[in-house]
């Protein structure tokens, strides 16, 4: 009787195993060092057994000639190899992998901590650094310590304005930033089955903020239908009784809109306690909340109104951007006074565009609010899409109305 991580890795918690990696991906940030390390390892072959991807998302388009030169070198390498390459504006690596690439039961490794996002498909997906990625390019394999798992049992349905992001902040708040270090999270129960793929991606995405190595959902009829629409036939994964290192029970109907206050993701407070706090910028997007359903929800809340503070909205991929254009969602967002950025990570990492000034406050739908992350002296409050919309309209942290 095994956890899903144990089933996919084919060994018991605590064991060290070498495993073939089904898919490995890196971005313009980690790819530069990965390429250097791969060359230094001898760099005479790329593993044909592993599907390799390189996606430019961190600084897109390049902000200066140093970045442009680094990206040029990496782009030329990718184009001269059989790697799948996505250039600037294609979208965030995790999002692209979720658009019909990642499949149940696969072992997926990304050179980015938020690679845990793809656990939403019933894959074992985890993040590594650049040198580990270089070794995967070379050999197609890597080593794992099979993790113990934390079972997060979900019941009920969201009520009021609460959404998956609030639930994600809630469980990170309960576990703490290292509450699941070296472990995996498994989201189970009828509350999990009732979630859409987009909602599951949000919950898996935040699992690394509790230190987890992976955050998995069992593939079920929702997963099967999502992947069928993208041309894949997959089977559901049947959960079996297993032993969890720790178990949490969360009732979705008890979740209320939450905010993670600076500078930790686990310092979580109800929005109502922070209502009235003035903000300088709102950012909607990222690998957490930049999907079509997020932007449509945001547009529905700001349509016909005007935002009171500068608001940056960034679709997580070109596919999502195109969808928002076709459906009219993008026009609603722009007419409400928001501005749009190139699909990618945007201001989340504070490299370029949307950087905060000293003393400024940003309400963001991203997943990290570390000190100085979006600019020296700037402060980041993390919240849901609905809280971002309500707050953008008021210019202060505002409780969203029930949908």
């Amino acid at each position, binding site marked *: 009787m095994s956890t899903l991580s144990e089933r996919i890795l084919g060994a018991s918690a605590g064991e060290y195993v070498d495993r073939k990696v089904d898919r490995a991906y890196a971005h313009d940030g980690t790819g530069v060092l990965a390429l250097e390390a791969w060359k230094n*390892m001898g760099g*005479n072959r790329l593993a044909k057994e592993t599907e390799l991807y390189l996606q430019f998302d961190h600084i897109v388009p390049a902000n200066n000639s140093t*970045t442009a030169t680094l990206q040029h070198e990496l782009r030329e390498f990718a184009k001269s190899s059989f790697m799948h390459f996505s250039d600037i504006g294609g979208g965030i690596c995790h999002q692209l992998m979720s658009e019909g690439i990642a499949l149940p039961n696969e072992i997926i490794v990304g050179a980015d901590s938020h690679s845990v996002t793809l656990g939403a498909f019933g894959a074992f997906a985890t993040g590594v*650094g650049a040198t*580990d990625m270089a070794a995967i390019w*070379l050999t197609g394999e890597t080593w794992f310590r099979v993790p113990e798992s934390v079972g997060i049992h979900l019941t009920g349905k969201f009520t009021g304005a609460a959404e998956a992001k609030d639930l994600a902040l809630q469980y990170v708040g309960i576990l703490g*930033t290292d509450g699941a270090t070296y472990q995996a999270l498994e989201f189970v129960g009828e509350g999990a089955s009732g979630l859409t793929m987009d909602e599951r991606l949000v919950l898996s995405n935040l699992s690394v903020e509790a230190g987890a190595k992976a955050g998995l959902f069992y593939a079920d009829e929702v997963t099967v239908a999502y992947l069928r629409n993208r041309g894949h036939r997959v089977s559901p994964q049947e959960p079996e009784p297993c032993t969890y290192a720790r178990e949490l029970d969360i009732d979705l109907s008890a979740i209320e809109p939450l905010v993670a206050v600076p500078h930790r993701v686990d310092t979580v407070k109800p929005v109502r306690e922070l209502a009235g706090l003035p903000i300088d910028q709102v950012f909607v997007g990222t690998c957490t909340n930049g999907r079509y359903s997020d932007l449509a929800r945001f547009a529905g809340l700001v349509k016909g109104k005007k935002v009171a503070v500068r608001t940056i909205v960034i679709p997580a991929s070109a596919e999502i951007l195109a969808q928002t254009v076709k459906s009219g969602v993008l026009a609603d967002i722009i007419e409400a006074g928001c501005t749009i950025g190139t699909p990618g990570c945007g201001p989340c990492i504070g490299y370029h565009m949307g950087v905060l000034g000293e003393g400024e406050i940003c309400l963001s739908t991203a997943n990290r609010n570390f000190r*100085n*992350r979006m600019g020296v002296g700037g402060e980041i409050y993390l919240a849901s899409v609905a809280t971002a919309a309500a707050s953008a309209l008021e210019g202060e942290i505002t409780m969203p109305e029930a949908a």
Partner: protein
Amino acid sequence: MMANEPGEPPAGGRNSRPIGGHAVCVPADIDTDLVIAGRYLRTKDRSLWAAHVFEDLDPGLAPRLKGAVIVAGKNFGCGSSREQAAIAIREAGAIAVIAPSFARIFFRNAINIGLPLIEADLSCSDGSPVKFSLDEGWVESGGKRQAIRPLSPRMREILAAGGLVEYWRSHA
């Protein structure tokens, strides 16, 4: 840990002899943004990372890292997978990081670039001597010696090779 056969070199390779340095104390839950800020990442210039390591935590810290053993609180290196965090610490001259626990990507990154990590819960006094032996599995500070959690055999091999690049250069 396995005993060595007579005449064999110690299993820990170049990490076999006890080494030490002065303690530099840092708090718990240090994220990799605090180790090296995103604004310094767009380069391959390692000396830039070394110069700005821990800048947002304490701008006076970088010059004190030469020959230092960083003694941190729990969950050191959480957050981003940026390997520049481990590289910056090593390039600034620190010889090891000791903490009760590490975030897992940082753990792998540090070993992969040849920076020893030691899982142990030490009380830290800035500037005091800290000694350790990875091969014998102990760390000593303030006159007290304690056992450390051993690295996995694979991590020991990688560290003994000097890092994952060197490991694969000799295995590929």
